[in-house]
């Protein structure tokens, strides 16, 4: 098969950018091999050894070579795509020409967009407080994507915001939908009567997605950051968000999502919720919902239950009972005698937390999510017994993107788990939406196939249970992703809670 080359003189990219470009081009139809490398002699030699006939291309070590092996039409398309991607990664300008300076401060940006009333801030944590304070002093609400902001700074920022009748969403706030505009990691959902305030990014994503799937819609989804309901911060942003939704005529039902807060904070929030005059669905993950249910407050056990209750209330129906059952699909392969354990590999922190919470009553569970009776992992890179891992933990994301974006860590771990004869069920989440990987199924499928081959070659069953958090409005497409994953044999549940219970019930007979 012929190889077509393009030399881009004096073009500099780092190795990750070039590897990603090579990988993307290699996946294009009709392309057998693709490579983007600096034009050093050893790289040219490497391409020749890989079977790419690049001929005597005129190139120097400081030039970028894009080589495509494939039919002519496909190579032409791939080279065109390469140029498009390279130009979109950063355009060159004429040497010495005048530059239009980007805005260097929130003040400068506000001068260009006078009607803006929210600043999204994503800087290293040590700068984030100062920038958030500047934004607040300019009268802007703040979504603070940055993490590594101290509790004292968070409390100070939120008190300043409260005094100015503003809100600080965050720090470490990854999800919000404001006036129908998804911010950061969020999904395309219908607008509707249900408002949510959440101290959990993937918790907010799961509830907004399930509300959409159940036929209702979201008025606002306000993130608070996971530390908001600590005693130090006092739930200031959740209280502000609750007030916004109470006053918002578009919001008929309010949903509050958090891990269990300190008692005095919970009392304060529930007090305001009772006084809101609107039905309020509350999920304090891991806490007993009966303890808070009463009057207009409806406690929920899982994110799915919270969504179901909210939608039922929005439709004027009676809140449904908790959905605790799992229906095992027919034709499950028989587990080998040694196959006993669940291995959950999660990209969503709240999904891992909820999985740990739901499993720990039925089995010993190791996790890096510290929940109740869960046991710590001696080595987070190695599973022991039943294990569920939040791959978004800082330990895993150092030097690489979050696992919702970059699936390599998870795909490697899937293959690693398949080599363990003790694994009975692989449990996964797949998160769609803005910010997430463009095609999660394409990332997962090769690893799932390899894992299945490993297990079956050794006479073991390979069972993978998962759920896709997303909608058909998301650019990845819920239906397309689900279909592709189901075709590999993945058993797809409608929610994280259902997937976890399914995995639990598959493993339970083997215990």
């Amino acid at each position, binding site marked *: 098969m012929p190889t077509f080359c393009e030399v881009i003189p*004096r073009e*500099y*990219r*780092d*190795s*990750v*950018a*070039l*590897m990603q470009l*090579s990988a993307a081009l290699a996946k294009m139809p009709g392309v057998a091999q693709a490579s*983007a*490398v*600096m034009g*050093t*002699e*050893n*790289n040219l030699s*490497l*391409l020749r*050894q*890989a079977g790419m006939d690049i001929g005597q291309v005129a190139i120097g*070590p*400081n030039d970028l070579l894009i080589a495509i092996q494939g039919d002519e039409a496909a190579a032409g398309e791939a080279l065109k795509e390469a140029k498009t991607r390279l130009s979109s990664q*950063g355009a*060159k*300008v*004429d*040497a*010495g020409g005048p*530059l239009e*300076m*980007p805005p*260097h*401060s*929130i*003040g*400068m*940006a506000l001068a260009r*967009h006078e*009607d*803006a*009333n*929210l*600043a*999204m*801030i994503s800087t290293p944590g040590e*700068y984030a407080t100062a*920038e958030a304070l500047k934004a607040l002093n300019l009268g*802007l*609400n703040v979504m603070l994507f940055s993490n590594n902001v101290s509790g004292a700074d968070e409390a100070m920022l939120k008190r300043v915001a409260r005094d100015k009748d*503003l809100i600080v969403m965050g720090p470490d706030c990854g999800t919000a939908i404001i*006036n129908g*505009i998804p*911010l950061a990691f969020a999904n395309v959902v219908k607008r509707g009567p249900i408002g949510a305030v959440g101290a959990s990014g993937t918790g907010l994503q799961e509830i907004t997605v399930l509300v959409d799937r159940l036929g209702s819609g979201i008025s*606002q989804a306000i993130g608070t950051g996971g530390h908001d309901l600590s005693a130090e911060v006092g739930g200031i942003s959740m209280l502000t968000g609750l007030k*916004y939704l109470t006053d918002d005529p578009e919001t008929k039902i309010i949903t509050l999502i958090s891990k269990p807060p300190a008692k005095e904070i919970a009392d304060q929030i529930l007090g305001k919720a009772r006084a809101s005059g609107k039905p309020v669905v509350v999920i304090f993950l891991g806490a007993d919902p009966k303890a808070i249910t009463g009057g207009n407050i409806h406690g929920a056990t899982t994110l799915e239950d919270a969504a179901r209750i909210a939608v039922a209330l929005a439709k004027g129906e009676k809140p449904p009972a908790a959905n605790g059952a799992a229906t095992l699909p027919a034709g499950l392969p028989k587990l080998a005698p040694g196959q006993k354990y669940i291995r959950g590999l999660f990209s969503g922190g709240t999904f891992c937390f909820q999985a740990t919470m739901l499993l720990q009553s039925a089995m010993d569970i190791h996790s890096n999510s510290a929940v109740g009776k869960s046991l710590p992992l001696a080595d987070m*890179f190695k599973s022991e017994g039943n294990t569920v891992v939040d791959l978004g933990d800082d330990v*895993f994301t150092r*030097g*690489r993107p979050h696992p919702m974006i970059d699936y390599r860590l998870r795909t490697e771990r899937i293959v690693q788990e398949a080599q363990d004869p003790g694994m009975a069920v692989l449990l996964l989440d797949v998160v769609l939406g803005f910010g997430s990987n463009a095609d999660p199924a394409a990332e997962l499928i090769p690893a799932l196939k390899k894992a299945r081959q490993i297990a079956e070659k050794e006479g073991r069953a390979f069972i993978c249970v998962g759920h896709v958090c997303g909608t058909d409005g998301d650019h990845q497409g819920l239906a397309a992703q689900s279909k592709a994953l189901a075709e590999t044999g993945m058993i797809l549940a409608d929610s994280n809670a259902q997937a976890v219970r399914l995995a639990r019930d598959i493993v339970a007979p083997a215990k």
Partner: protein
Amino acid sequence: MNVQTVITGEVSRFGALASPILWADTIGCRVPERWRKGRVQAVFERACHIVTDDRGFLAILTGDCGNVAHGIRLKTRPRLNAHVRVGQHVSFADNRITFGSQNLTVELADAEAWQSELRPGLFDNGLRLGNHATIARQLLTQAAARSDSEFLKLVARLDMPSTPLADLVGRQLAPLKTAQRSRDHASALATLANLIGLGPGLTPAGDDFIIGWLAGLTLSASTADAKLFLQEMCEGVADRRHATTTVSAQHLDDACQLQFSERLSNLCIAIGRDRSDTDLRALIDAQLAIGATSGADAAAGLMFALSDLARDGDSD
């Protein structure tokens, strides 16, 4: 809250200055001292490379980067790619580097000189070096499992998919090990020639590996024979450095002058001194955080060079 527009502007430490001034923290010992004009050759978020009109080379690094011998490190951490463009003219006068028509100025007046502290013969206690080399090797082996560096995985002997690059590198390591042990400089240089410029990015992984390997040889060079071998390797690599990109050639040239990056130098010195396991782990993490895989590739070279000193080293 009535969100109308989301501000997505660059947030920096510049405040509202129209022509920001950045203050340099340190100046590397190999930064050209006499030059007047140059051009920006490459720009990344945390680094910017300048080629001077007389073919000198220097890098501007943000404050969170480690020092390098040809680098000027800033006191702050602006996103350089938001302010500097490839091809932009740069001038140097009165201790100031000015980009374009004063779009950005780097003030050098307060900066301190910096050079790498690692040098041959710094440690002559072979037993202690062996202990810490073993710990470092174990930590790097653990890190290899979560690294994207094919060099590090190969040196750590982890299972990895067969790729043309991995296969080629794999074929070089055994002869390099033999040459290192026998101090056969001709064979070693012949093998290194196959690695220079090998790898996709601006600083190809093969070059980073060689730099780490030279650092390891420097750390362990306590005898006259070892120092002579190191000298021969440095001279041979320096002669071959033009087979790679300009930026990487500069890094190789620094290493051949025994001027290693701050993080690599600190890691080597920690291996040589009696530093705790925890310190080594932090220094290894810092080294691995350099670039996409550059830090890990250099760590692979270091690990490879030290394998004979580590108590669990290769026996082949």
